[in-house]
């Protein structure tokens, strides 16, 4: 590949990655708000009494939400670190840096996609469980 073509490729890839990073940041911010909301929902005692194992189930979901929150914080840190890698790109060997950035980016993408999938799964579980046991107005 010619040097100019290589540079062009690198520029495009980086632009694409930066766009993806920005998208991840937004997604994590939304997830963080959802976790907060679901946490409140689970802790406010708005469910029908006499549901078997209600307390245990709510506690279980709260723990899972906390785990998710911890994971979200870690991912946020990883994204920040990855962003710093981009900022430093001009200070080091361009080609070598490209492959490090690419490897990190692809791994981070996998981690974030897995995290978002877990988050959707848990949200759906909570929706299904709590949706059926909400204290009805009488």
């Amino acid at each position, binding site marked *: 590949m010619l040097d100019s073509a290589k540079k062009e490729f690198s520029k*495009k890839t980086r*632009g*694409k990655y930066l*766009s993806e990073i*920005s*998208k991840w940041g*937004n*997604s994590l911010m*939304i997830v963080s*708000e*959802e976790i*907060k*909301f679901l946490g*409140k*929902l689970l802790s*406010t*005692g*708005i469910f029908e009494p006499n549901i078997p194992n209600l307390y245990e189930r709510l506690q279980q979901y709260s723990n899972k939400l906390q785990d998710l929150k911890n994971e979200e914080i870690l991912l946020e840190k990883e994204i920040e670190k990855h962003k710093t890698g981009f900022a430093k790109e001009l200070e080091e060997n361009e080609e070598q840096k490209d492959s490090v950035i690419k490897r990190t980016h692809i791994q981070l993408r996998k981690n974030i996609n897995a995290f978002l999938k877990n988050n*959707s799964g848990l*949200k*759906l579980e909570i*929706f299904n469980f709590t*949706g059926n046991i*909400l*204290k*009805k*107005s*009488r």
Partner: protein
Amino acid sequence: METSGQNYKYVEWKSAEEMHFSSNQWISELNFIKDEHHFFEDMLKEYTLPIIESNLLSKVKDLIDRITKYKQKSETLLNKITEHRNGLQVMVDGINQLEEENRYKKEHRKLLVDVNQFSLEYNDFKKEIFETIARALKQQKQKRLLS
């Protein structure tokens, strides 16, 4: 879901595979939003007593109306994306059809903008739902503690 910070030019760089991946991702997310709508609607309609007691009834009525609108919007978007995804053949059939391929990319770009816009509005809307329900829950909790 892809959000507003997206660069327009990004679509130019997406391969057919990436466009297919994005379309599938949008479809999966919009399908998930259907479940969310169902939950929010149930919650706002069924959990009415605390809402009435919190003087949030008119706000909740407005939210329920808007859920209905978002349901329609997401359904329309879902249909458009499904149709778009099914038309990917033009990009991968090995035949050089520059005009059709450009049209496909243009359509993808338009959908990207639509999805981003929808996502942005919908996320703000969700925040409103969270805040409203959280207010009702808080007041119920306070009431319970005082009783």
